[in-house]
């Protein structure tokens, strides 16, 4: 299993900068997720690692060996495409076997590998089918089986679950996680779905506009987002309120969020304050700041409610298991669950 390093990788398409000076290290055996909105460059990075694109500048290393100019087929990567790219004119068996035949492996070895991969993905009964006879979930398994049958040094997955429906997606992601744990292949997984990213990842790189915004574990990117973009993108969509830092805390107009040790140089700074819907409570909490608001809309998700509340003209969303009693409600937020970002640079301001 291989360690992958990207050193200052950039990629331009004409005048568009798809990837902008990205350096990353993926540890051996790790499940590393590239997360970001469409067009953020995550797929381009994956394709550069696969050898399907040549970077405009920068180098790619597999275990310290420069593979930047190595043809894709020589890199020993297995790839699962978003469209699955299961060749439509071949049976499932031949789809998995063709890459092995190309390598001129003995027939017995090919058969053994195809059947072993099929067993792992639970598609042994589909080997004689054509792709058009398969459901989306089955095609996805075939694509994964093809990728692991070549016994790759690196497994690359480009949004492999995005074409499945919600229930199946939740099951399939647990299967992928279990399979990766078992095979211990260094895996790079691209997705735009932050829940999927969190559920799968050992570490996540959050990307935006060709740049890496933050690399970290799930808890790091969720609890300490380094900038407004990461805060907005991870977790259920955050409430943002404009405010100003004072010597006693952050003034957000309709309330003051108290902090004890505000450095003098920050006083007067304009900030964006982010609060996650799940961090707004309808019942008193210890050390909580209280806000008064009016309920404008309730979305009933059965196991919880999303409550849209007008607080002095600002609309906040709260996620709670309590159904609000009456139109007027009190909200409670804890200063430690409030994220403060510089309005101009959008970077996190560490304040306590």
């Amino acid at each position: 299993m291989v360690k992958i390093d990207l050193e200052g990788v950039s990629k331009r398409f004409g005048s568009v900068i798809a990837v902008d000076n990205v350096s990353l290290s993926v540890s051996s055996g790790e499940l590393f997720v590239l997360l970001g909105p469409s067009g953020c460059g995550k797929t381009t990075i994956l394709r550069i690692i696969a050898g399907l694109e040549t970077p405009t500048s920068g180098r790619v290393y597999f275990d310290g060996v420069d593979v930047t100019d190595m043809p894709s087929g020589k890199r020993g990567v297995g790839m699962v495409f978003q469209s699955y790219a299961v060749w439509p004119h071949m049976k499932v068996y031949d789809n998995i076997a063709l890459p092995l035949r190309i390598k001129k492996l003995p027939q017995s070895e090919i058969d053994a590998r195809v059947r072993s991969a099929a067993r792992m993905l639970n598609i042994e009964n589909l080997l004689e089918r054509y792709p058009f006879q398969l459901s989306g979930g089955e095609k996805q398994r075939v694509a994964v089986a093809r990728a692991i049958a070549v016994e790759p040094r690196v497994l690359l997955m480009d949004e492999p679950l995005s074409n499945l429906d919600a229930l199946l997606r939740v099951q399939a992601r647990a299967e992928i996680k279990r399979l990766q744990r078992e095979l211990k292949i260094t895996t790079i997984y691209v997705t735009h779905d932050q829940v999927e990213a969190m559920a799968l990842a050992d570490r996540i790189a959050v990307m935006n506009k060709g740049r890496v915004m933050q690399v970290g574990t799930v808890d790091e990117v969720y609890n300490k987002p380094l900038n407004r973009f990461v805060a907005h993108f991870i977790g259920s969509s955050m409430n943002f309120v404009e405010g100003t830092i004072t010597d006693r805390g952050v003034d957000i107009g309709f309330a003051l969020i108290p902090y004890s040790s505000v450095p003098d140089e920050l006083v007067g700074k304009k900030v964006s304050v982010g609060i996650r819907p799940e961090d707004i409570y309808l019942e008193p909490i210890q050390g909580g700041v209280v806000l008064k608001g009016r309920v404008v809309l309730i979305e009933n998700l059965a196991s919880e409610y999303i409550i849209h509340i007008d607080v002095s003209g600002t609309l906040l969303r709260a996620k709670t298991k309590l159904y609000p009693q009456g139109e007027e409600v009190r909200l409670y937020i804890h200063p430690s669950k409030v994220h403060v970002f510089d309005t101009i640079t959008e970077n996190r301001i560490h304040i306590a």
Partner: protein
Amino acid sequence: MPSPLRKHIPYILVAPSLAYLAFFISYPIFYTFSLALFGNPSPMVEVMTSPRLGEVALYTTLIIATVIPAQIVIAIFASLFFLNRFRGRELVLYLFIAPLAINEVAAALIWYTMLSSSGFLNKLLINTGVISAPIYFFGYEFIDRTLLAIFLTEVWRATPIVFIIIYAGMQMISRDYLEAADVFGLNLWQKLRYIILPLIKPYIQTALIIRTLFALQVVGPIFILAGEYVRVLATEVVYWYSMRLNPGVASAWALLIGLVTLLLGGLYIKLLRPSAGAT
């Protein structure tokens, strides 16, 4: 408005189309049938027992069996070539399909001029000293070379249409199928053999059908390049109609063209059944 009436509206609105079909399309076709089949002796029987039939079959087969495969092969390689993005690609592409804009008769005249005993090719070869006397392409004694000239003219003139079909087919292949092949280590020839050719089968089939259809109808170029001594199905139609003033026999030959077209079309569809699920 009650449902049954609504259902019939499309039919009522298109009654003119149906009338058009019946009188304008069907009548001439049935007229040809009746001319070809009825009479004493039946022109069709006359044709099927005529000594010319063997000769016509030979030349028709020879031309179709050399021209069309050559066109398909050239079109496949040209398509592979044009799939690469390079500077000036559009210009080269237009140049490649330019012969489409030239009349088949004009095309034949151009090649006739170039290959004639005092034409460009002979001048070039004599001036460079490769040969000392001109090579004759035309005339009954040089029927092999005439066939070569017909081959060149037809390939020049009609390959673009084959190219357009096959190129369209290749552009329809999902990039992912080819990139998966790259990732899994297939080289260019393996990609062509295992991925591209199976996937463009339906387009090769279409190209074969269209080209056979049109190749069976070529008259002008053959008359120009070979006068009366290379006889194919289509030239027989014109010969019997215009020179022998026998519409019956002409219709019978025309009907034969139709039959051969259907037969070969059916054959292509059977042989080149698209692989399951390839779309």
